[in-house]
């Protein structure tokens, strides 16, 4: 098979799509802020075991629902200390804790603690911060079994943030392929695929998610639950994209470069994947960015209903689930505020970034910018 060759050497000043894209993106402060926040959030998920002072489900029976621990520089007798410290607390069964000012526990940088594998490979037992044992520091408070909420937020982000990315990669691959095939081949293939998407889009999203969840046993181990959730969200997500891609392919099918590729005898799959789909990329990238929060919220929704990731494994959804009782909401609001803020910030970061991307990749805009 003969390959069309890029015979012309492009001049250095050429406006590659990537360069246009970056230049446009730099003009949008919101997109930069959103993107930067996403980098921070995903780095935190990656470094979770290091940033967390404790292990994921480190239960502390002495500190159920402990409020966030204040850091002090000045002790009870009025003396100042160079190194911040915390007090131990004594609590009763009513979860009211009084600080015990007789002993200080200094904040430590890089103390040894629970062993973990950094990036899943490097064995390590250093954590970013901690306090001298037996003192305990709860940056964002403790939950119903005395687990550190900050720690669980970090470990939970590993689940909640990756579900979105993995789900989107699978469903967009499906959506691109099926939409491309549907639009390019037409005929009965097109009819079958399009009726399939109509079917999926006619079932209210959350009902479909719950019904699909019924296909898997409700008491799966957390890793398999994770895979099940990704599978469910990906299965639902491809339909909407496939319809849009089909429409774009229909208009691209008659383009001269497609006819040229056909004349050269390229296979149909090759034409779809190598020639047609790349031209839908700018739309797809924006659509994917904007769609990620939907997947994250899908996991949050399932875990919130108790159908997703089960404790002791942490996810933002099951953290919200632990916060939903009246007593917890009124007495221990950090249980709601910590995961709630994390979810809000993540969704907002994706929205800002997606909006900025849309402006940057919109061909009308970039054409105007160049002219």
């Amino acid at each position, binding site marked *: 098979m003969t390959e069309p060759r890029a015979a012309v050497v492009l001049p250095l000043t050429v406006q590659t799509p990537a360069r246009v894209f970056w230049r446009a993106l730099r003009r949008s402060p919101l997109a930069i802020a959103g993107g930067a926040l996403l980098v921070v959030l995903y780095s935190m998920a990656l470094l979770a075991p290091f940033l967390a002072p404790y292990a994921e489900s480190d239960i502390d029976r002495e500190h159920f629902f402990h409020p966030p621990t204040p850091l002090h520089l000045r002790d009870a007798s009025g003396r100042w200390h160079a190194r911040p410290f915390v007090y131990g607390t004594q609590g009763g069964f009513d979860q009211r804790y009084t600080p015990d000012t007789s002993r200080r526990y200094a904040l430590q940088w890089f103390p040894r603690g629970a062993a973990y594998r950094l990036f899943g490979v490097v064995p390590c037992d250093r954590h970013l911060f901690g306090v001298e044992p037996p003192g305990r520091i709860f940056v964002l408070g403790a939950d119903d079994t005395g687990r550190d909420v900050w720690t669980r937020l970090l470990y939970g982000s590993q689940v909640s943030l990756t579900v979105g990315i993995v789900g989107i990669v699978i469903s967009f691959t499906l959506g691109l392929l099926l939409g491309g095939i549907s639009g390019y081949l037409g005929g009965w293939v097109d009819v079958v695929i399009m009726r399939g998407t109509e079917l999926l889009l006619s079932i209210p999203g959350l*009902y479909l998610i719950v019904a699909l969840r*019924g296909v898997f046993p409700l008491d799966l181990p957390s890793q398999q639950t994770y895979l099940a959730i990704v599978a469910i969200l990906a299965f639902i997500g491809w339909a909407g994209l496939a319809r849009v891609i089909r429409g774009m392919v229909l208009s691209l099918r008659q383009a001269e470069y497609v006819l040229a590729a056909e004349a050269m005898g390229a296979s149909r799959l090759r034409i779809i994947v190598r020639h047609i789909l790349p031209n839908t990329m700018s739309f797809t990238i924006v659509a994917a960015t904007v769609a990620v929060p939907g997947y994250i919220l899908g996991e949050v929704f399932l875990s919130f209903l108790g159908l997703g990731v089960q404790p002791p494994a942490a996810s933002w959804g099951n953290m919200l689930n632990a916060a*939903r009782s009246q007593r917890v909401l009124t007495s221990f609001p950090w249980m709601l505020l910590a995961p709630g803020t994390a*979810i809000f910030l993540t969704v907002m970061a994706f929205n800002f970034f997606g909006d900025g991307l849309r402006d940057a990749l919109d061909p009308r805009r970039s054409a105007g910018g160049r002219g």
Partner: protein
Amino acid sequence: MRTFLLRRLLQTIPLLFGISALTFLLLKLAPGDFLATMADNPQISSATLEAMRHRFGLDRPWWVQYFLYLKNIFLHFDFGESFARHQPVFEVLRTGLGNTLLLASAAGLVTWGLAIPLGLLAAVRQYGVADRALSFAAFVWLSVPEVLSGLLLLWLAAATGWFPVGGMRDLDFEDFTAIQKLGDLLRHLALPAIVVGMVPLASRMRQMRASLLDQLKLDYVTTARAKGLPEHQVITRHALRNALNPLITLFGFTLGSLVSGSFVAETIFSWPGLGSITLEALNTHDQYLVMGSVLMASTVLIAGNLVADVLLAVADPRIRHD
């Protein structure tokens, strides 16, 4: 118009068949045989079990089962039996659907009751302080998921006691006078309706703003101003009426999204609607009930889209003569 309606109605039939087939498939894929779990239950007599086995043909191949399921729906309007509630599925769903539609309608009132005046304000004061503040608020609000706003309002209810924290009726509901009953229902309805109604608010507000701005650019508005009409009359009498026209079709689409959206609010505020029923049915392996409620929710969504299309056709003759 009649042929348009007829064609549009006929299109929904294969869709409903498809949905029933898909839900049935999901039922078959689900792990565990629900007859086996029923057989373990001492409350269910073996005679009942036999009767059900026969009625749904559960000892026969799956395609016969699917056919029987459809036959029962068409001939007897029988969606099967809820195992956990010992009630026909349709009975359970009827109450649930009513409650969900009540919640969705109240939520619709919240959405449109806020979206139209706010969109109007933003359009009239385009690029003014109010417009900028509203568009910023809408942008931030888009990032607050329903689970979160629901829990925040639940917190408000629990902390202040201004609103009930869940359910649909007070314990003393039966002893109330008619007016007290209505008040009680509204108090229970308020928070879930706000949670559900606020979800599409931001985008509806933007659409209202854009629609009114389009109208304000047209010649007839200039004419109205030129003949000396006061500005508020130009807007309310002329521009607003035309601006609302394209939004009419959104009513139908909003219905579908409100039904889906009420799922979250129903579970947070224990509102006894379709969503709560579906969730409970899933947890108790009450599979005919799961199937029935997914089918029912989809029917509402499809009906909403149908209404939207018909309204659009009424408003725009080009579509119906297509």
